[in-house]
């Protein structure tokens, strides 16, 4: 059964990104996969409320705003997902007693928005020069009623799916996995599989997402390197 937008099952939507598009924040990025699109702006390290100050590390705060409607518990849920994903990758101990604030604004949600949020955050953090242990790339995948597994599902596909799976991996890990995507050796930073599925389904989606994540990572890399090259023309005259 072909997909509504005539993609291959393992084909992610066209990726698009803009780095440093916002000028009030310390770092920003817009990340889009097809019509799903997310803005992320990062402040940090900045001053932290005495109340939640940590003496040995920076506090990481995530604020997520939905594309439409008032924010609610579902947004707190996304925030906690993103915060968890970056808690280790951000080298918070390098800026004790400060705050690193990640502000995410969904522009449009046409499926796989959680993954997009994570990818946008990675790029914004890099743009802000927040010290990172590693880059993070995320991808999602859905098992449809007919048992077919499709990557980067649209809202429509996700709604009809048996189960939906989102994974995030650290860059070095993806590299190690190699193009084969040997799931065994890898360790996801974030997993959210929900619906009605078997272990086999899970493993299948795992591999698909790992491969998609590789593509995403490669994309982010070129985008960032492009910007640096542009800037550093002068820094290496």
């Amino acid at each position: 059964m072909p997909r509504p937008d005539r993609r291959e099952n393992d084909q992610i939507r066209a990726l698009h990104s803009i780095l440093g598009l916002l000028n009030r924040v310390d770092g920003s990025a817009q990340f889009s996969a097809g019509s799903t699109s997310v803005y992320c702006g990062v402040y940090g390290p900045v001053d932290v409320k005495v109340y939640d100050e940590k003496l040995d590390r920076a506090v990481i705060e995530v604020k997520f705003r939905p594309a439409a409607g008032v924010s609610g518990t579902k947004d707190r849920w996304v925030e906690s997902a993103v915060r968890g994903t970056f808690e280790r990758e951000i080298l918070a101990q390098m800026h004790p007693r400060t705050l690193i604030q990640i502000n995410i604004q969904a522009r449009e949600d046409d499926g796989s928005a959680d993954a997009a949020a994570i990818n946008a955050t990675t790029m914004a953090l890099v743009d802000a020069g927040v010290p990172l242990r590693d880059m993070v790339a995320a991808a999602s995948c859905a098992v449809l009623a007919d048992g077919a597994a499709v990557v980067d599902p649209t809202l429509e596909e996700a709604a009809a799916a048996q189960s939906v799976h989102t994974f995030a991996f650290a860059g070095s890990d993806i590299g190690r996995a190699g193009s084969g995507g040997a799931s065994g050796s890898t360790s996801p930073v974030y997993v959210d599989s929900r619906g009605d599925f078997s272990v086999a389904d899970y493993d299948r989606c795992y591999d698909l997402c790992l491969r998609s994540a590789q593509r995403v990572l490669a994309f982010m890399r070129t985008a960032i390197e492009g910007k640096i090259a542009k800037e550093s023309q002068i820094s290496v005259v």
Partner: protein
Amino acid sequence: MAETKVVLPGDIIDTSLDSDEEESSVLRLGPGVAQIDEQVSAVAAGVLHSDNEKKQWWVVSNKRRYVPAEGEPVVGVVVARHGEGYRVDIGSAQGALLPLLAFEGATKRNKPNLAVGTVVYARVAVANSVMDPEIECYNSHTGKSEGYGELAGGFMFKCSLGLARRLIDSKAPVLNALGSGIPFEVAVGLNGRVWINTEAPATTVLIANAIKNSEFLDAKQCRQMVKELLEKQ
């Protein structure tokens, strides 16, 4: 000297030295580089610089948020006055403390009196992770101001830390180009704040915009841009 290579966070940096001396010797890791579980890797995106003789590695990357480092010149704005000094915003996480006596010739009896909102040119005296940064408007060894102190008149604007870093070195193309055309005063803070002063507001605005525009331009383009601006005037 430094060969250039763009690195991203997580990229492993090969610290094996060409010269075949003992590996045990301690490596110096500058900004943007850190040792993470037994490996030296980049923690920021930018251009990798290395100096094998000194065994130094560092990444030059562009940022917007200033993290104070001792000895660096900064442009700050006084936001409050306390008993023992001024609280000055230098764009870093915590406001910096400027002691009342950290001025040339300041004594218990005669201290400078700065209003809130005053702009000062200062250097970072104390920067550590456990206390708020401290800045001073004089060289504590010589006791001389050495150009530091209140900045009166003129105009201040913000730019990226990367640009500020480039402006501060005397060879900064845009400043040279401008300097050859118009006379003006400039004070560059590594915290991404630039103060300039000329006799005419129009010129100040022109220079400010020229400097802002130079962010993504190389030397040649800079000269070109400045030339055009001056002609417009």
